[in-house]
């Protein structure tokens, strides 16, 4: 916990009695709005999703408590649980029907949900229709009735700050790393991350924050009607997150503060200035939002942060017990067996009747001219793109059509031809993603820091693999700052972090310098000696021929030749494919 945070908390607690009533009220609303915006930071900044329906979730929390406390006399703490349960149900359902589709279906779905709920609240007689529900009792906390805004102030800010802290904790964990890599879905799935599930978790958390905010809102106002839960308020919440900055949890607080103050001010001045009554502040909000999205996509928080000098401290790797390892298949046994695989994309046949196999403790190189279908083959094997026909056996089991995260679980790991790293995350964190399946703590445990032993073991493993790949000095650099060749090595470290028994490497030596290539070759030999099976695609023939035990050659998606390197190099068909035939 840093000094700024503690100072902020002290200011909030000690400063309150000195503040005038109006400022306390304003701070209460800022706190309530920031909690909703925090959910949107998670959803938009971390998950690459968004929702316009957060105001409707606020409405669920508010109406649940309004109805149950006034009509059925339930305690506010009971209604909180009911509200959260309803919110969970709704968010699971909305997530289920939209999250497997392209990214824009969730926001569109939430627009429909936001509008429907608004009209539903306004028309249901038991909920008071458009006039709403009055006479909501105050919350009773350990015998103290939180009747005034001044007392509820403490609850609102305590909830908001603990939401911020737990969110920060969660993001800095195995679960958080999985969430932060959701935008790179193919890579995440290949590392064993169930992307749909994590999107669902994020959406659910955002909805819960909104619901709790609504619950407190109802007990602050002691009255609810449908107006504050409409679609346009939902858009305003998104506006807060975008203006504050969706990449950081504090962006939510900044955005909520700025928008609340600005709205207050504009609602006073604009009608007077224009000589008409109306919500003209939305024009300013709209234009501001466009400006921010054009000029400062990360929002205003990073700009504010630049004004304060920061000292960057790298993460120190603490000693921890190594993670358990998987038992390797017996040396010489067949790990991967591809039989007669055909892959068609519409009319294009990318792989035709292609076969190959790899044994434990062996390096097989798959070579062929550009466009021969090598990367397609990789995608078939690793489950990214299942083959149209044919059989793929991994450790004896058929895996064609199996999801790539399940194949990863069984011990296959891979790198990508076009590097897929999270450029803004540190090298260490990127590599730790590889160990995703070797940890088991869930997002609630990590939010409350009950995952620290496991986390130390995972980061220790990541650091160990980075050292093996010769990247120890780059541990705390952001992945995007590395040269391309080194980024490829980071991918290899990440793949190794999964403790695989079969490693698929797509052009690992491209962009490496001579000495780096030698180091890589040494590493691969060492892995082979440990019993790992390695399948690699590579164009650098010196590298391949000095390293591989066997070579399989592809051309035009078909099998051309197979054998030990020296034999393949003399094969007339291979020479023709690479150098052109003599007409």
């Amino acid at each position, binding site marked *: 916990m840093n000094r700024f945070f503690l100072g902020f908390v002290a200011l909030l607690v000690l400063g309150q009695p000195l503040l005038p009533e109006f400022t306390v009220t304003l701070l209460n609303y800022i706190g309530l709005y920031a909690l909703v915006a925090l959910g949107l930071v998670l959803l938009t900044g971390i998950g*690459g999703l968004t929702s316009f329906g957060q105001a409707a979730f606020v409405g669920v929390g508010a109406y649940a408590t309004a109805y149950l406390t006034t009509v059925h006399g339930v305690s506010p703490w009971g209604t909180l649980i009911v509200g959260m349960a309803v919110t969970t149900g709704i968010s699971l359902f909305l997530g289920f029907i939209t999250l497997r589709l392209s990214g824009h279906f969730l926001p*569109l779905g939430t627009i429909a949900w936001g509008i429907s709920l608004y009209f539903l609240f306004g028309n249901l007689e038991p909920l008071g229709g458009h006039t709403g529900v009055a006479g909501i009792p105050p919350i009773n906390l350990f015998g103290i009735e939180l009747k005034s805004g001044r007392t509820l102030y403490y609850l609102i800010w305590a909830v908001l700050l603990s939401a911020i802290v737990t969110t920060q904790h969660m993001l800095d964990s195995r679960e958080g790393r999985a969430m932060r890599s959701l935008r790179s879905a193919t890579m995440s799935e290949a590392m064993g991350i169930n992307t749909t599930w994590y999107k669902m978790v994020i959406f659910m958390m955002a909805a819960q924050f909104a619901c709790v905010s609504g619950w407190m809102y109802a007990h602050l106002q002691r009255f609810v009607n449908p107006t504050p839960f409409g679609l346009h308020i939902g858009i305003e919440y998104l506006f807060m997150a975008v203006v504050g900055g969706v990449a950081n949890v504090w962006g939510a607080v900044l955005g909520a503060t700025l928008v609340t103050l600005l709205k207050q001010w504009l609602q006073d001045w604009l009608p007077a200035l224009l000589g008409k009554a109306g919500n003209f502040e939305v024009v300013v909000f709209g234009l501001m939002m466009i400006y921010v999205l054009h000029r400062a996509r990360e929002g205003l928080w990073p700009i504010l942060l630049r004004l304060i000098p920061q000292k960057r401290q790298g993460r120190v790797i603490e000693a921890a017990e190594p993670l358990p390892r998987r038992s390797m298949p017996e040396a010489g046994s067949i790990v991967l067996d591809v039989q007669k695989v055909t892959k068609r994309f519409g009319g294009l046949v990318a792989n035709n009747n292609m076969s190959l196999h790899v044994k434990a403790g062996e390096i097989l190189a798959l070579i062929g001219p550009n466009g021969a279908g090598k990367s397609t083959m990789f995608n078939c094997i690793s489950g990214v793109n299942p083959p149209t026909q044919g059989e793929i056996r991994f450790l004896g089991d058929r895996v064609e059509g199996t999801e790539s995260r399940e194949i990863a679980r069984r011990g296959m790991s891979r790198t990508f031809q076009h590097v897929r790293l999270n450029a803004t995350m540190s090298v260490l964190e990127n590599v730790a993603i590889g160990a995703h399946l070797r940890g088991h703590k869930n997002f609630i445990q990590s939010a409350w820091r009950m995952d620290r032993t496991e986390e130390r073991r995972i980061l220790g493993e990541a650091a160990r693999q980075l050292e093996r790949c010769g990247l120890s000095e780059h541990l705390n650099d952001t992945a995007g700052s590395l040269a391309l060749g080194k980024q490829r090595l980071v991918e290899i470290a990440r793949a190794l972090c999964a403790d695989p028994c079969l490693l698929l490497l797509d052009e690992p030596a491209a962009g490496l310098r001579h000495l780096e290539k030698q180091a890589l070759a040494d590493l691969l030999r060492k892995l082979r000696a440990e019993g790992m099976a390695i399948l690699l695609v590579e164009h650098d023939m010196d590298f391949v021929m000095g390293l591989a035990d066997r070579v399989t050659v592809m051309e035009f998606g078909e099998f051309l030749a197979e054998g030990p390197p020296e034999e393949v190099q003399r094969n007339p068909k291979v020479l023709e494919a690479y150098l052109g035939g003599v007409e």
Partner: protein
Amino acid sequence: MDFQIHLLLIQDGVTNGAIYALLSLALVLVFAVTRVIFIPQGEFVAYGALTLAAIQAGKAPPTVWFLVALGAAAAGADIWQAVRESRGSRIPAILGINLGLPLALAGILQVAPLATLPLVVQVILTLLVVVPLGPMIYRLAYQPVAEATVLLLLIVSVAVHLALLGLGLFFFGAEGTRTPSFTDGSLSIGPATFQYQSLWIIGITVLLIVGLFAFFERTLYGKALRATAINRTGAKLMGISTDMAGKLSFALAALVGAFSGVLVSPVTTIYYDTGFLMGLKGFVGAIIGGLASYPIASLGAVMVGLLESYSSFWASAYKEVIVFTLIIPVLVWRSLTTHHVEEEEH
């Protein structure tokens, strides 16, 4: 419920459905070409209807001054770009198109006896005011971030919607208006009675759809838009300007929106914020078509219209809830039949 009522509800549903179909076509078009989910589509409906109403009341519509202002801003942005690219010779053309023409139009609207002009001329003037807003908004709000993610473009759309909504209130006030029918009266065939305005709406919708189809199939610009929709980079390499394609698709969307407003304002009172819900109903149609298929989108939109008219008969308070819930089964079905992992955008 007798046959007469059914007939009435179906007529009502198909009439509104035709408008939603037009809007959904524009939404699919804009999304395909620019990846923009065009939430502000509905504002063009309101601007179209209310601009026509102002002209018919004999007043110069306030939207023309908005056009001049947006034109000035667009000209500013274009000139800045031209100067940076050292192509100063383009400045007169930029000024002429973005500022000269709107000012000329504003002048005409000041002096012309607007209220007494024939309806056709009033409609043309309305379209001349509202349609250019489309490409100008594209230029100012979307073009600078044209390569961003769908998500970011969607948030921009919401922001544009907010701004246009507030401006709509400023321009037209909170009162709604209705414009006179193109042709008064109704046509009776046997037991059925058809409002002439409904026939106008359905007829013009069909004509516009045929027109759009011909545009995409027969003209070079239409083919350029289709090429951009299929592959932006490929289209760029073939010399198709994606900026042009974006502006053109926004112009078409604005045309469809404004014209829908002109068509619908004799049968429904239009307020400054009516367009938003209409646009969203077009969206429901577009989502039914997966934001990709024109024919399914228009059929879906007609379905929305029918569902709306029947639910307003049986449960009018829950009309909107029922209509927007329609997308749930569609999303469930799409979700269960899709098997791909969403690929990242760069």
